[in-house]
């Protein structure tokens, strides 16, 4: 006889888990974030040219800070824009 607290679903629930985020700098041993490489820094910006939070990129705090510095330098030197629309 079935237990009373046993829950049954009509369709199988999805048990698939989202892949864990990781810090790409730690994983690939990148020690220096280059401000001259605009294409690389674009990975950390959204369509309006705003910086993406750590929550989304998965960067560690140490490298998020370095990325932030690099992006700000690149903006000063007109490699990246301060504000745009439809960046990507």
């Amino acid at each position, binding site marked *: 006889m079935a237990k009373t607290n046993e829950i049954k679903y009509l369709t199988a629930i999805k048990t698939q888990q989202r892949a864990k985020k990781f810090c790409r700098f730690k994983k*690939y*041993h*990148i*020690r*220096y974030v*280059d*401000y*001259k490489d*605009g294409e690389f820094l674009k990975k950390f910006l959204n369509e309006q040219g705003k910086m993406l939070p750590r929550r989304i990129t998965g960067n560690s705090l140490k490298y998020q800070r370095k990325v932030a510095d690099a992006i700000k*330098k690149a*903006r*000063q*030197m*007109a*490699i*990246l*824009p*301060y504000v745009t629309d439809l960046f990507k």
Partner: protein
Amino acid sequence: MGFRLKSTTFAAQLIFLNKIREMNNYELMVIFTPVLSEEDFKAAQNKFTAFVKENGGKVTHDNPWGLKSLAYPIQKKTTGLYWVMEYSALSDFNEKLKIQILRDETVLRFMATKLDKYAVEYNARKKSGVQHYSGTEKAEA
């Protein structure tokens, strides 16, 4: 006691003085106006490299990127001539360089960055032509 106190302060002063005389690695990026001719662009570069050498610095690398479009207009110009130079100099040199650059009307914008040891490593690797350096680093580790 008094003597000892004096000696420590003297030692501290020596350390401080040594720190001032230490050579640091820097990187200078300059954006020149796009109206410069090829020779003028070269002359402007030579002027600054000569200025580094005059002041006891050493130019390790210089790389003219050439004409590149700006991400936003600077002084109503949409393109600029980029030039990147790596050099090592004393810590009081950048202030002198700044005065020289500000006097130059052909410069739209400039920035001197201090390079840490990882940055020097990165630039050296980039110069030797290894583009995807992360892969090789990973293999070593």
